[in-house]
């Protein structure tokens, strides 16, 4: 009986909130473009274009600046590249696919903006969920060994398709404070089905990024991703700091028009896919791990 009352109470609460939002939506409209694009350096924003919009994303990261002028601060060094296509089939739901040079990974991704911030602050923040699945496409010879063992001491077998999969899930909360300042914070969970001994399969991370609009089309942008060291979910038996992933700190400048965004930046990761950065980033300011990169997005409206 107690259970039934609880269900009725919950149901009535949900319907009340839903109706309240419907009424509010009539009077209050979502804020205009909290971010210029769905991508912000390597991160995602709560922004999703209109329904039936196709987006092409080019992400390019040069090598690190560690060698100085000998390879023109990484411009002549090997680069990491991602080509992605996103489509918006329903309002505030975006599906995408991308090809990454790093580990020859194909990623399938989805983003859902659950709540949009409104002009009159009926909804003070935007909330979005983002998730992807990465499929490592390297030949078996690309791995350090063609055998895997289940768990730390389990049976040994061959690398199979599920071993190639990695996952990233993120909750993003953002707010456009005024015409100049938009900020976002997020929490994420990354999982790899396969790892080298001494590395983790799971990682929780926190994220903080934003933009400061300085001209009509230009903004200063930044992104910070911090993988957390949590002993209870770590399998790093020796608990050393040797294999800990380093945070990604990036800052840059964005120029945007209605259908384009161009971002040029410097950041401390060589990876583009978020789960790779959260799990494996070895670059930092200490080892001159900064690299130049840019992002170009192009939208086609229906």
């Amino acid at each position, binding site marked *: 009986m107690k259970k039934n009352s609880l269900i009725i109470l919950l149901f009535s609460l949900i319907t009340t909130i839903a109706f309240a939002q419907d009424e509010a939506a009539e009077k209050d409209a979502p804020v205009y473009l909290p971010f210029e694009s769905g991508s912000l350096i390597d991160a995602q924003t709560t922004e999703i274009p209109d329904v039936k919009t196709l987006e092409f994303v080019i992400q390019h990261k040069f*090598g690190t600046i*560690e*060698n100085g002028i*000998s*390879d023109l601060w990484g411009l*002549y*060094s*090997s680069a990491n590249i991602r080509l992605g296509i996103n489509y918006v089939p329903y309002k505030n739901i975006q599906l995408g696919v991308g090809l990454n040079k*790093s*580990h020859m990974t194909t990623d*399938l991704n989805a983003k859902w903006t659950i709540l949009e911030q409104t002009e009159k602050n009926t909804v003070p923040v935007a909330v979005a969920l983002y998730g992807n*699945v990465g499929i490592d496409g390297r030949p078996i*010879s*690309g*791995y*350090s*060994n063609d*055998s*895997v*063992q*289940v*768990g*730390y001491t389990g049976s*040994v077998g061959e*690398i199979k*398709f*599920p*071993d190639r*999969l990695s*996952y990233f899930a993120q909750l993003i909360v953002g707010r456009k404070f005024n015409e100049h300042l938009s900020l976002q914070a997020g929490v994420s969970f990354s*999982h790899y*089905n*396969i*790892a*080298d*001994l001494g590395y983790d*399969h799971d990682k929780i991370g926190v994220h903080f990024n934003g933009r400061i609009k300085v001209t009509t089309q230009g903004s200063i942008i930044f992104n910070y991703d911090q993988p957390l060291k949590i002993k209870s979910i770590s*399998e790093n038996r020796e608990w050393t700091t040797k294999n800990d992933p380093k945070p990604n700190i990036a800052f840059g400048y964005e120029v945007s028009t209605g259908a384009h965004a161009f971002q040029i930046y410097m950041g401390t990761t*060589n990876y583009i896919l978020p789960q790779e950065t959260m799990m*494996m980033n*070895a*670059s930092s300011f200490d080892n001159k791990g900064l690299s130049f990169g840019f992002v170009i997005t192009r939208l086609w409206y229906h």
Partner: protein
Amino acid sequence: MKKYKIFFLVAVIGLLASACKYDYIVPETVVIPDNGGNPISFSEQIMPIFSNGDQCTKCHKQGGFGTPDFTKSAAVVYSSIVPAYVDTTNPEGSTIYINAHSGSHNNAKVSGTEAALLLQWITEGAQNN
């Protein structure tokens, strides 16, 4: 349209069902180099590592994106990497050792045995022999 939705749903469930595996790559058996008391030879033991499997020479070649060029003669390669990429006071901190075995340098990763050989050569003073 309905067909696509079902296909999409099956694909999502399939990919999620494959999650939560906790497999490890079996570590390879590293053979610690035993040179019978002789120092590691740069020309005979270190040079072949750079071209093995095209791991380094894929980029580090004439006309390639990487510098230095590892396809040149042992004497030329030696002068281009020592001392620029080698730190005999801290062998494990040598750029050439880190880039060759950590996997953070453009996905290149030499085998554990090759990495041990490289480290021992640096520890022995990175001789041009």
